[in-house]
């Protein structure tokens, strides 16, 4: 058990695994994502309430879903950083936070553009939109704190504390924003999925969610590799790797 843990904590080992894994993640992710999107855009039936604008769902839901689960993954990594001081965990948090920020922005953007034909306005203070906006702030805070601290080790631990404080707050924020929303406006404006989505709609949606997950995996591997090279540049294996010249 600890042997495996040791291995998992080794940047060198991870670098090798990531190199081997990345082509699969990229190809698989791109294929799934494109299949889901093409299916959703051209073949899935029209939604009888919202018309064709609902086709934004095939990118909106994957980005929103991933934006939230990336934060959860970061929180798990933060626990690992604080408890076991595993280097790879904080490499992960650092590498992945900007990706989470971009995904959150995309979820917000697609939500806003979707809102225009559906609700007749670009932005409403809908509970979900608002909590996504707050998630964007949380990502921004994590990135800003990480940039502000020069010392690598304290940056890692400080960011881990912040991520954990954030993750404790996320359910509270979500709940209070929902409560606030019902207080301020009638529920008619709420974006609700229809209870039963036909298979021609949810299968492509599932494909694009999976595809984006794999693309995220690829991005995470790539960015972690970059971070590992930066941190381990004094080691023999990184020198061999870099001097071998194969990128």
């Amino acid at each position, binding site marked *: 058990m600890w042997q495996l843990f040791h291995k998992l904590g080794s940047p060198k080992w991870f670098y090798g695994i990531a190199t081997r894994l990345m082509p699969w993640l990229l190809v698989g992710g791109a294929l799934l994502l494109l299949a889901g999107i093409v299916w959703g855009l051209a073949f899935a039936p029209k939604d009888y309430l919202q018309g064709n604008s609902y086709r934004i769902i095939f990118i909106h839901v994957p980005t929103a879903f991933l934006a939230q689960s990336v934060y959860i993954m970061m929180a798990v990594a933060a626990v690992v950083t604080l408890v076991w001081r595993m280097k790879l965990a904080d490499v992960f948090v650092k590498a992945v936070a900007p990706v989470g920020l971009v995904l959150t922005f995309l979820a917000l953007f697609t939500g806003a553009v979707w809102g225009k034909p559906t609700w007749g306005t670009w932005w409403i203070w809908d509970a979900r939109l608002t909590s996504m906006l707050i998630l964007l702030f949380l990502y921004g805070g994590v990135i800003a704190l990480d940039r502000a601290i020069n010392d690598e080790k304290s940056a890692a631990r*400080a960011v881990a504390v912040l991520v954990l404080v954030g993750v404790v707050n996320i359910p509270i924020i979500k709940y209070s924003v929902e409560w606030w929303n019902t207080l301020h406006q009638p529920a008619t404006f709420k974006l609700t999925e229809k209870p039963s989505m036909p298979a021609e709609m949810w299968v492509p949606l599932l494909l694009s969610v999976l595809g984006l997950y794999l693309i995220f995996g690829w991005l995470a591997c790539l960015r972690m590799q970059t971070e590992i090279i930066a941190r381990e540049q004094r080691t023999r294996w990184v020198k061999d790797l870099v001097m071998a010249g194969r990128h």
Partner: protein
Amino acid sequence: MSNNPVRVHAVAEGVGVAGAMKAVFMRDMKVAFRQRQDLLNPLLFFVMVVTLFPLGVSPEVSFLREAGAGILWVAALLSVLLSLDHLFRHDFDDGTLEQLVLQPQPLFLLVLAKTLAHWMLTGLPLVILTPVLGIMVHLPGNSIGILCLTLLIGTPVLSLIGSIGAALTLGLRSAGVLLSLLIIPLYIPVLIFGTGTVAAVSEGAPVGAYLALMGAFLVLALTLAPFASASALKISMSNS
């Protein structure tokens, strides 16, 4: 780190946990009353921000009555935020904080004492000032009462959550702005329920449940925030 930790230990061991907390608390109060301007600044800021709203948006009684509680809450939140930078800064600069970290007593209790002092020096005066400003924005009497009550429960939460941010950004270059970036998202639930409670009163709805929820926030913040800020403090101290 410290030149002479032995002496501090010897003093601290004699007093016990409660005594140490009391010592930290009293010291912060004394230091604050020697620099009275630092005490006044957040209050002045509070009054000024509230003044901006009638000037900037509308002096209409109907608008102010409707938005008044929100304005006061946002202004209070910002003034607490403004004062947070001082929470650990002076002690960090003159080395007192290092001594605190080295104490035999658990650091989170000492941090709790410091945060409590911070609240007494900023949050509490804000609450006391609120009725005056409440009258100025034409809030009805019962709303003012509830507003004070929500601020009384809410401002300690602001201080507690804020202490985490203050500890995390300690010793950084642009600490002030960074602190706001980190902390404002975490303040949102308190703000929502604080203003929501006042809104419920003005609609004649019962407020017991809202107040209970705010109390729950306070208990949660009291139990969790000191741990987080203590560990953040340790990280920041090892950094410098």
